[in-house]
């Protein structure tokens, strides 16, 4: 019953007091729930926004936030994204983090249409390295393609454990000479996946952008002062170093030539290079010096050339070794004339040239002011944004559920975790319901002469400093060979003097007439215990059982210590393990899933708990 009676509640001071209480409660409740909501919100985030502490993830309503996440998923690394899209901030400088990216200005509809039909036309024509598969790379996280990849692996190799199917994917940096498609056991799965997914996951490689970021950006910088210096040296008038155009062949200007040569020699993959006919003999001599005879070259390349004269500069599906040799040859050249760069950037310009012939016509159609076709950049960034808008619902729902799907898969498929947790919880509950109640019953019912002595012995350890016993307890577990058993989890804390004391006090208060009746009816002591005492004490025992359940379910450090063997890990230990391998959002998702049972139990059993709590009263 409330302290204030009905009348007081309705009086003015009473109302003010209650209002005050509600204010306090609401304020407190916000603080109680806020971190929990942060966790729930964090569980549907990814690397870009995981550090933003907001209750409602901003990408749900803010397109900029969604675009940042989308770009991060698509390219994985901000350097790669900058090279491919040449995204820049309002000052013309490049971005160093996806979290700073803004949404792009959309070009005219016509430009977008031209771009889309261009992509559609070249999709099947282009070699594999012109289009990279995005949405695949994540650092300690799971991307859309990464998730599909692990599913595909599991289907192809049903015996592989869930942990192992999470194979990392490196971003398809075809522009980098060191990149290669994945090798090893799952290479085939990767290839099939790559061939079967929607074109919207691919983006065209921009060699020009790579040049702007990797060579110009590093040697000149990217900010305003850098572009001034560049313009001075190159006699150009770029507004940003990101705007730099790549000449397909060796440029005239000396400063530009130096950067260009550096890029071609040291960075660019020979996949994007062709040699003029006139330079081929030199290339073949280079190979001849290395391999001496054509047979050993054929062995390394896996080819069947008859003579040196038949060996072409590698292209398309040539072997990795052939490209590696080509890279070396290019690197060895002091004069890079006769080298031509190929890139989607140029093909796009060629296609436009073919369509419009005259730049004026293009400007009319696009409402733009280009003075030459060579000025036109691929609208990759705007297209990304368009793709995002077109698939917004699907992208958002994927972001919202992916971490959960992944975490659930990890939790369920690890097998042991769920089983161990269930057994541990059950054993803990059963032990808690037997050991202490039985002892308390004996003390209460029989009141043996040595009773208080026994109770003292049971309770006296409370007076000793607990730290002293901790190390020896562990040593004992080890000496008894109990580590990695359920016994180690359950037994050490099974008996508790304080609980026995509480229970004894409670049993003392049960009416003794019942026991007398039971004795007269010839009921044995065990039966009396189980059919009279226990049922009468149901609420308090329910609280004990619930406590034992939650303790076992949430037990983490202790479970980790005494059961280090993987086959004995409980759910919480597995989640801890996930924390080592994955980023916070995924762990949050796993923890939200794991929190559900405890929350449900509390909500359902609230009244039982209230009834079963015992409190001390003066005798």
């Amino acid at each position, binding site marked *: *019953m*409330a*302290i204030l009676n009905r009348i*007081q509640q309705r009086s003015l*001071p009473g109302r003010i007091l209650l209002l005050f209480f509600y204010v306090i*409660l609401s304020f407190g409740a916000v603080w*109680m*729930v806020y*971190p929990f909501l942060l*966790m729930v919100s964090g569980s549907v985030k990814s690397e870009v926004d995981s550090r933003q502490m907001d209750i409602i993830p901003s990408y749900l309503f803010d397109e900029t936030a969604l675009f940042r996440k989308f770009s991060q998923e698509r390219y994985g690394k901000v350097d790669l994204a900058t090279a491919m899209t040449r995204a820049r901030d309002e000052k013309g400088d490049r971005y160093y*983090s996806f979290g700073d990216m803004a949404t792009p200005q959309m070009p005219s509809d016509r430009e977008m249409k031209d771009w889309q039909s261009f992509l559609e036309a070249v999709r099947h024509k282009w070699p594999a390295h012109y289009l990279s598969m995005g949405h695949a790379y994540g650092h*300690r996280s799971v991307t859309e393609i990464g998730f599909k990849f692990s599913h595909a692996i599991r289907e192809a190799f049903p015996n592989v454990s869930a942990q*192992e199917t999470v*194979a*990392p994917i490196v971003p398809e940096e075809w522009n980098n000479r060191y990149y290669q498609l*994945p*090798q*090893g056991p*799952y290479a085939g799965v990767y290839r099939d996946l790559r061939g079967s997914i929607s074109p919207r996951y691919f983006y065209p490689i921009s060699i020009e952008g790579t040049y702007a970021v*990797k060579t110009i950006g590093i040697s000149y910088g*990217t900010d305003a002062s850098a572009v001034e210096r560049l313009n001075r040296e190159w006699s150009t008038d770029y507004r940003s170093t990101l705007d730099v155009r790549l000449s397909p062949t060796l440029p005239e200007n000396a400063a530009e030539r130096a950067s260009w040569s550096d890029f071609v020699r040291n*960075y660019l993959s020979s996949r994007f290079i062709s040699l003029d006919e006139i330079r081929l003999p030199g290339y073949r001599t280079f190979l001849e010096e290395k391999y001496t005879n054509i047979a050993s070259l054929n062995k390394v390349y896996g080819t069947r050339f008859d003579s040196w004269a038949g060996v072409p500069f590698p292209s398309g599906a040539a072997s990795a070794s052939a490209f590696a040799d080509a890279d070396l040859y290019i*690197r060895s050249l002091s004069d890079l004339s006769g080298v031509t760069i190929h890139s989607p950037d140029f093909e796009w310009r060629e296609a436009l040239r073919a369509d419009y012939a005259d730049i004026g016509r293009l400007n009319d159609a696009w409402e733009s002011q280009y003075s030459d076709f060579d000025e036109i950049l691929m609208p990759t960034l705007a297209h990304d944004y368009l793709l995002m808008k077109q698939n917004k619902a699907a992208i958002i729902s994927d972001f919202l559920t992916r971490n959960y799907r992944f975490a659930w898969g990890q939790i369920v498929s690890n097998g042991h975790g769920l089983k161990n947790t269930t057994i541990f919880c059950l054993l803990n509950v059963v032990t808690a319901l037997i050991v202490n109640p039985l*002892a308390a019953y*004996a003390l209460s019912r*029989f*009141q043996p*002469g*040595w009773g*208080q002595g026994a*109770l*003292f012995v*049971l309770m006296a350890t409370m007076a000793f400093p607990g730290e*002293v*016993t901790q*190390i020896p*307890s562990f040593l*004992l577990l*080890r000496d008894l060979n109990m580590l990695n058993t359920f016994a180690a989890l359950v037994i050490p804390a*099974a*008996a508790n003097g304080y609980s026995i004391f*509480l229970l004894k*006090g409670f049993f003392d208060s049960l009416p003794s007439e019942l026991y007398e009746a039971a004795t007269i009816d010839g009921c044995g002591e065990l039966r009396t215990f189980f059919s009279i005492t226990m049922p009468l004490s149901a609420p308090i025992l329910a609280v004990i059982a619930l406590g034992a359940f939650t303790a076992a379910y*949430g037990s*983490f*450090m202790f479970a980790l*210590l005494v059961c*280090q063997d993987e086959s004995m890990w409980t759910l919480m230990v597995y*989640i*801890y393990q996930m924390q080592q391998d994955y980023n916070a959002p995924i762990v949050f998702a796993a923890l939200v899933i794991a*929190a559900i049972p405890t*929350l449900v139990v*509390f*909500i359902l059993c*609230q009244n039982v708990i*209230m009834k079963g*709590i015992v*409190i*001390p009263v*003066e005798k």
Partner: protein
Amino acid sequence: MKIRSAARCFQGLSAHTMKSAFYNPAKVTMLRFIFMVAAVILWLVPEHSVGVERADAVVTVKVFSLPQKGNTEASNVAAYKVMQRFLELHPDVRLESSTTLKIEGDVMDAAPLMAIAAGTSPDIIYVNFRQSDTYISQGFLYPLDEYINELSPEELVERIPPSIKPVIYREGPDGQSHYWAMPKEIVAPVLLFRKDLFARAGLDPRKPPTDWKELEEAARKIADPGAGVYGLVFHTGANASHGISPYLSSAGAKAVVQLPDGRWKAHFDTPEAIAGYGFAIRLMQSTVTKGGVTGALAYVGADGWSKILAGKVGMFFTELSESNLTAFDPEVLGTAPIPKGPTGRSIPQINARMLGIYAGVKDKRTRDAAWKYIKFSNSEEAHRIYTRTMVELGAAHMINPVWLEEFGYPELARLAPVGLIDIYRAAVRDGILEPFGRNCQFVYTYMSAPLERLSYTKFNGVSDAERDAIIKRTLVEAVQKTNERMLGHIPPEARTKRNTTAWAIAAITGTVFVVFIGFVFKWMSKELTASSGRNRHQSVLAGIFILPALFLILVWQYYPLARGSLMAFQDYNLMGASQWVGINNFADVLFDIQFWSSLKNAFYFCALWMIFGFAPPVALAVILQEIPLGRVMFRVLFYIPAVVSGVVILFMWRAIYDPSPDGILNRIISFFGGSAQQWLQDPNLAMICVVFPLAWAGLGPSSIIYLAALKGIPDELYEASDIDGAAFFDKLRYVVLPYMKPLLVINAVGATIYGFKSGDAILAMTGGGPNGATQVVGYEIWQRTFLFLKFGQGTAMAWILGLILLSFTAYQMRILARVEFRTTQK
């Protein structure tokens, strides 16, 4: 756990991980046990062997880590191929990866020992310089002499370079010198710098800084507070000093030196060390102003790696190893030698990853197989397979160019980032060895304390000489502490004085203790009803019923108590040969200023806990009982923190306490017009910040108990007071309070005891920092016992703490004896 392992940091990107342990503030008592044991096991040696004699032909060797099948990262695939080749060559051997939990934080170095303790140790264990002495002296490693003596002299020199031989070939517990491990590869620190930030700052990426002066200049140019860009980075935490070791070593300083008699002494209070510390502190405290924005020159914090990964740090140190020269993208990051110090030389501190055979392997065949694997994994053939695979995977730029040349890819060797191998070789050639003396896995912890202290010292307007004097004082003190605690040097006169005092105090407290126990027994016997004289049969039956509980308590509480008490009088050695040291441990503790200051901190913690942890649940219960609507809803809402698993809570609170202006709490504060605070990093606020989450998590569950108690108050009492015309607060005072008194008193005493002992939240949130402000006695005990292996001292402290709290405990038991427990259902 909070404290980042510097070693881990140095190794690379993997350090960018969530650094909190699973931790449930609501279940603190239980957790305390766990935390304490958590580290101890790191040091245990099992008495039983792991290797079991097998009759069948195949020998299984457990390795601490093996390449995984499903990992498509190039280096992993290459390592996997090497392993496959080994298995081809040795069909009678089976390799198994040991699945130990990865524990992070300050116990990282010792993680494999957890497996040793639990009897699941791998047969091949990983050793580094720091750990080597502990591993050897504790007898974890099997001497490799019989195997190494088979090697030809040339091979021996190649496998064990003379420069690192002192670490590997040294005296063991038997007084003889043995080979203890095989180096897998030498790692050496280098300076990495972001080329793009260099270009942005107008610096030439081809000309990285070569000495301290240039380093500072470059850092000043790079730092741009407005853009959140820093010139350098300093990590904080227990291993912070590892991050400044390139400065210390280049200044010519050494962490420890070995005396002619073989003992080790801390040595970081020399003029060289002062120069190194001084330079680091100056960089840490410097600010730069650009475009009207003033900010720090260097990022100083626990999450330094996240700043590095975000591309916001211009220069930082990392370690190169032979097989993996560039874990970083060479297009973005340039490599340079450690900058020269006042010595005019670049002196890196080198380390080696080594493999050893676990001494618990009893089966000779397992040992032989283990040796074969160790030998093969660093053989020429292994290198060749590794190199070839890496080349085939297109990852040639990541490996050692020497291998490329050696195994037929000289042209690819030229592709490698220019100069990398030279830098690495020079580092190996000029480097000094990472400390490998007694207990040196803790040397960074000891060296970090003065660093932290100095970084909080204000040097504004202090002359250089005064500044050096302050640094010197701090270092001398730290060296003393290191000698005493880590290396165990105490002068004999001090010893005698301490012991005499300790005996006197022990005598007094012992008497008090016995008297108290006597009182407790008397109270309890008086209150418990005497025997009602049941028959013998029932007495036997009662005995049977009570037996399980009694047995369990005897075995799991009394026995550990007895065993643990003895440890307080020993220099406890996990190997089993512990020495009796009499009262020494108590004497050392009583004369330890840090112990007393940790007690003082515990008082403060306890006081805060009473305010934030004890009182609010009572008030909440009263309010919940009072409101006419929404009781159940609020009850559930307030209970929610208890449902969420512990770690996350603390992780989340640490994010809430984020000291940057974007931190949640700082945003809230600035919304109300306040200024941003440092929270956990502010020595004045840190303790409150630790207490609050604990109180917050316990609020709901604790209030449920009071709520149950309130429900038990008979309606008649209220009705009677209504007739007297009592108002709200009158009823609270004259009806509620008297009824709840026993519960309140018991819980208040419990809360006090908890407040004194608690230490685990500290471990998870601050690690005793900042500057020792949260070093409470519970955490001090934990640290002393499990981090510094002073089991005896830890136990002695626990006893002293127990005695201090004894009166509380006795009082609690006295009340317990007087009350009875009832459910409050009506």
